[in-house]
């Protein structure tokens, strides 16, 4: 998965249509970032990167970039 595709998937999960979402967007400011979105993001990461993200690690995630860093940039195409 490319970083751009990942951002599209995140937009789907949070039900965002705007195009000005990029890696510097702080997800915590988005209305769609609720507890269900968090589960969906964890599921996405499990499915595509076979990685478990602990709740304590996820707590520090703010921007999409910080999430990519957590997953590991090398895991993206």
């Amino acid at each position: 998965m490319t970083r751009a595709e990942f951002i599209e998937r995140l937009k789907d999960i949070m039900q965002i249509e705007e195009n000005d979402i990029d890696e510097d967007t702080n997800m915590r400011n988005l209305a769609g970032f609720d507890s269900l979105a968090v589960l969906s993001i964890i599921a996405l990461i499990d499915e595509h990167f076979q990685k478990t993200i602990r709740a304590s690690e996820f707590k520090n995630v703010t921007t999409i970039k910080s999430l990519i860093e957590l997953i590991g940039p090398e895991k993206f195409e």
Partner: protein
Amino acid sequence: MNPTIIAIEYFLPNIEIDNQQLEKEFPDWDSKKIEDKVGIKTRHVVQADETALDIALKAADKILKYYNKELIDFLLFCTESPDYFLPPNACLLQDRLKLPTSIGALDYNLGCSGYIYGLAIAKGLIRAGIAKSILLIMAETYTKYIHKRDKSNRTIFGDGAAATIIESFEQSHIGEFVFGTDGSGYENLIVPCGGHRERKAHYHQEIEDPPGSFRTRQNLYMNGQEIFNFTINNVPRLVEQVLLKNNITIDQIDCVVFHQANKYILNYLRKKMGIPQEKFYINMEQTGNTVSATIPIALKDCLTNNIIKKGDKVLLVGFGVGYSWGGTVISI
């Protein structure tokens, strides 16, 4: 000897809280979203003076309308919200149900995996010649632990009780079991106060976590993310092991009944394990997550609605608080 489930009945308390009511209490909560993603429309809640024991009695009464109580020689009561620390609540059940005083009776404390363990204990008691007819009752009232302003937990959990009779019966049986326990996850689904580790709360302030949801140390706490992680990391392997131990493939299974936690998690697991949608039962619309009662309630509904028929092979999987998990295959 072929221990098997002979009958199941359940009871849901009368007060219902539907999504529209939750929306009124939590204005930024979207009832359509809850219905779509979580799969719950309404959940039942006990009254202030109604306990798990009370609803256990009501479920048992239903079954004893047609099953002769004099035949019962063992009672198993699974709850995490007992009336008393002691005496065992199963003793009160024996008395109130007027079961023979010659029976064995005990409480056991499990949540979402409770029914699987109950079936295993019952099978063992019958196979060992210790008992012939077991009354297994699950009853849970998590709503009593949940803070009024805990948005997520109030959405998910409902109260309910289910009674099952297990006896030996020729044509059907309870298969082999796989269990698992991992106490390192104990803090992720917990009521911190009230037991002897912390009898009275160390502090009484309300904690806001996650934003918009409130609780104190006397309330239920669930770390949804960690529970989700635990589930996706353990349940697929559990299912593999249960199928292997029962010498059966998923193609030969007629119906899959998981602990009905929430629609999102169940759908994710189903897809991850490649189980066809038509044999995977998901329904917590009218009940919410009733913890240890979800599996027997689902089984009963499947039987009533002809989703399962006599002779069908059903995969049962329970997982959750503890962490504790277990699975088996039954032929109903």
